[in-house]
C-alpha cells in the first residue's frame, strides 16, 4: 500500500471521471450514474492500495477487484486503461459488435477484470469464493468487491456476507455504493433498507461508513480494514449517483443518453474539474 497522497488521488479521480465519460460517450449512451460515483474509490484502489501488474493481469498474488454491480464496467475500463492494462482508446469500442468492453464486466474479455458480473448479487459470492481460494493458497492479497445499494435487495448478497463471516475471511473488503438510487428510482421508495450499515454489521462484518467521494476517508477505512483480523470488512460509501456528469448528477438517473450538446457540456466540465484538481 502506498502512502496517502490526497492531491495525487484527487487528480486521478478527476482523470478517471473524464475518461469514464469518454468511454461511454464513444457509444453515446450507457450506465453513467453508477460508474461516475465510483471514480474516487477506483482512484484510491488503483492509485494507492492495490497490487496489480498490467503486464500480467492474472498475476496470482494480485489484489482482485470484483464489480458485483457489473454495470459500472465503464469506470473500470477507464481506470484500467489509465493504469496501462491496454491503450485507453481500446475502451472506446464500448458495446460495439465484438468489443472487449461490454456493458457488464467480463473476465473472458477485458484484461484487469477478475470475475464476470451482470446478474446482480452474484459477484458477492464469486468474490467471496475467490477470497477463500486465495486463503487456501496462503496468499497475502485482498479481494475488493463493490456492491450496489439496490443490488443489496438480492438475498444472495447477504448469503455471501454470511459465508464470509462464518469462514472468517479477513482478506475481503466489500464496498456498498450507498448512492440511494437504483433503476426505478430512490432505493428508499423501492425496497427500503433502513440502515444498511447496521445490517452489514449485524451480519458480522467489520463495518465502516464514509464519504465515498473523500479519497482520504476511503483510504483510511481500507487501512482500518486491513488491520482487522479474523472478520471480513464492509465499507459503506455514501455517494452521489452520477457525480461529475453534469447531465446525470442532479437527476441521479440510472442510464443516460444525452444529446451531443449535453455530452459536450459534460466533457468540458470534467476537463475543467481535472484542470482544477491539478492546479489545487
Amino acid at each position, binding site marked *: 500500500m502506498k502512502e496517502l497522497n490526497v492531491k495525487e488521488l484527487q487528480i486521478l479521480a478527476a482523470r478517471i471521471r473524464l475518461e469514464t465519460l469518454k468511454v461511454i460517450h464513444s457509444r453515446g449512451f450507457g450506465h453513467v450514474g453508477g460508474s461516475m460515483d465510483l471514480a474516487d474509490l477506483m482512484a484510491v484502489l488503483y492509485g494507492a492500495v492495490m497490487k496489480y501488474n498490467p503486464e500480467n493481469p492474472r498475476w*496470482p498474488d494480485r489484489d482482485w477487484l470484483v464489480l458485483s454491480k457489473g454495470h459500472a464496467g465503464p469506470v473500470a475500463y477507464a481506470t484500467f486503461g489509465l493504469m496501462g492494462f491496454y491503450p485507453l482508446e481500446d475502451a472506446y469500442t464500448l458495446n460495439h459488435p465484438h468489443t472487449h468492453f461490454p456493458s457488464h464486466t*467480463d*473476465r*473472458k474479455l477485458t484484461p484487469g477484470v*477478475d*470475475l*464476470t458480473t*451482470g*446478474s446482480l*448479487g*452474484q459477484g*458477492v*459470492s*464469486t*468474490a*467471496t*469464493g*475467490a*477470497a*477463500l*481460494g*486465495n486463503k*487456501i*493458497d496462503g496468499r497475502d492479497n485482498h479481494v475488493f468487491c463493490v456492491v450496489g445499494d439496490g443490488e443489496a435487495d438480492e*438475498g*444472495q448478497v447477504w*448469503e*455471501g456476507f*454470511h*459465508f464470509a463471516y*462464518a*469462514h472468517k475471511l479477513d482478506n475481503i473488503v466489500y464496498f456498498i455504493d450507498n448512492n440511494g438510487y437504483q433503476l426505478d428510482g430512490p432505493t428508499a421508495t423501492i425496497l427500503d433498507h433502513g440502515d444498511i450499515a447496521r445490517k452489514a454489521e449485524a451480519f458480522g462484518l467489520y463495518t465502516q461508513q464514509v464519504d465515498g467521494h473523500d479519497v482520504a476517508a476511503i483510504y483510511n477505512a481500507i487501512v482500518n480494514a486491513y488491520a482487522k483480523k479474523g472478520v471480513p470488512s464492509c465499507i459503506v460509501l455514501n455517494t452521489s449517483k452520477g457525480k461529475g456528469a453534469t447531465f446525470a448528477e442532479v437527476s441521479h438517473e440510472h442510464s443516460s443518453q444525452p444529446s451531443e450538446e449535453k455530452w459536450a457540456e459534460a466533457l468540458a466540465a470534467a476537463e475543467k474539474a481535472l484542470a482544477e484538481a491539478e492546479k489545487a
Partner: protein
Amino acid sequence: MNVNLIGKHEKDSRASRDALALTLNEMMAQDKSICYVDCDLMGCINTKQLMKNYPDRAFEAGIAEANGAGIAAGLAATGKKVFFHSFGTFSSRRCYDQIYMSAAYAGLTVHVLGSDAGVTAAFNGGTHMPLEDAAMYLSIPESTVLDPCDYEQLKSITQQLPGITRGVTFTRFVRKDVIQVYGEGTQFEIGKGVVLHESDKDVCTIVTSGIMVDEALKAYESLQAEGIDVRVIDMFTWKPLDEALLLKAARETGAIVTAENHNTACGLGSVVANCLAHNCPTPQEFVGVQDQFGQVGPQSFLMDEYGLRAPVIVEAVKKVIARK
C-alpha cells in the same frame, strides 16, 4: 472399451453415493487443487469425511445454494477444481443463473453434482424430485451432462471429471440402492456410449441410461424370448452425446426407443431425436416421465406410476418397429 456386464438385476451391496464419496476422498489426497462445496447435504451422500480429512478444501455453504454456486465459481477462478453438491432439484433450479453466469458464461468450470436423480428421490416426494435438472444443464453452452447407472460407472465418471476444464459439468446420480450393471474393471469414457447387446439382426435400438439401464436389459430379455433382436446402448453421456454410436445404431437397426428417468420433454429422448433429425431421421418412441410432476412414494411405485418399466419399453419397441 472393456465392458464387464453383470446384468443379473441384483442390487449392489454398496451404496451408490460411496462411488462418489470414497473416490473423491482418494482423489483429494492426490490432487491438492480439488475443493468440495456442499449445501448442508454432506450427510446424505457421505461426504462429511471430506470435511474431516480436508478441512481446508471441503466447505459448507449452508442452505444457500445460489451463494454456494458462486463460491464454487470463485474458487475455480483461483485455479481450484471444484465439486459442488446439492440434491438435483436444488443444484439445478436453486442456482441456475449462478451456475450459468458466474461459472459457465465466465469460463469457469464447476463440477455440479445432483443427487437423487428423478424418481429415486422417492420419499422426499415431488418437491425434491428432479425431472428437469438435466434439461436445464443441457441448455448451457459447453456443458457436460451425465446420468450414470451404477457404482462402477459413477466411480469412473468421478475420476474423469477433474480432467474436464471447459464448461460446467452436471452429474445426476442415485444416493443409495442401485442395481449392479457393471463389474469391476469396466472402463467408461465420457462422450462414449456403452453397447450392452448387439447383433446384426437387430431391428431396433434401446438408448438408455441411469436406473433405466436395468429395465432396458429386462426388456431385452423379454424381446429375445419373443424372437425380437434389439440393440441396447447405455448412453450415460447425454452431452456430449455419442453421435457416431447412435447414428450407426439408427442406420443398422432403423428404429430407436429412448428410456430415461427424466421428463421426456427435454431429456435423453430429445437430444437423441435432435441428433437423428439432423443426420438420419428415424422413427423413435420416448419412454420416460411424460411432462408430469414428481410425487411421493416408494421408488418401485413411482417407476410403475411413470411407466419407467421394462414392459413399457417392450411395447415401445413393438410400436416403433411397426412405424418403420
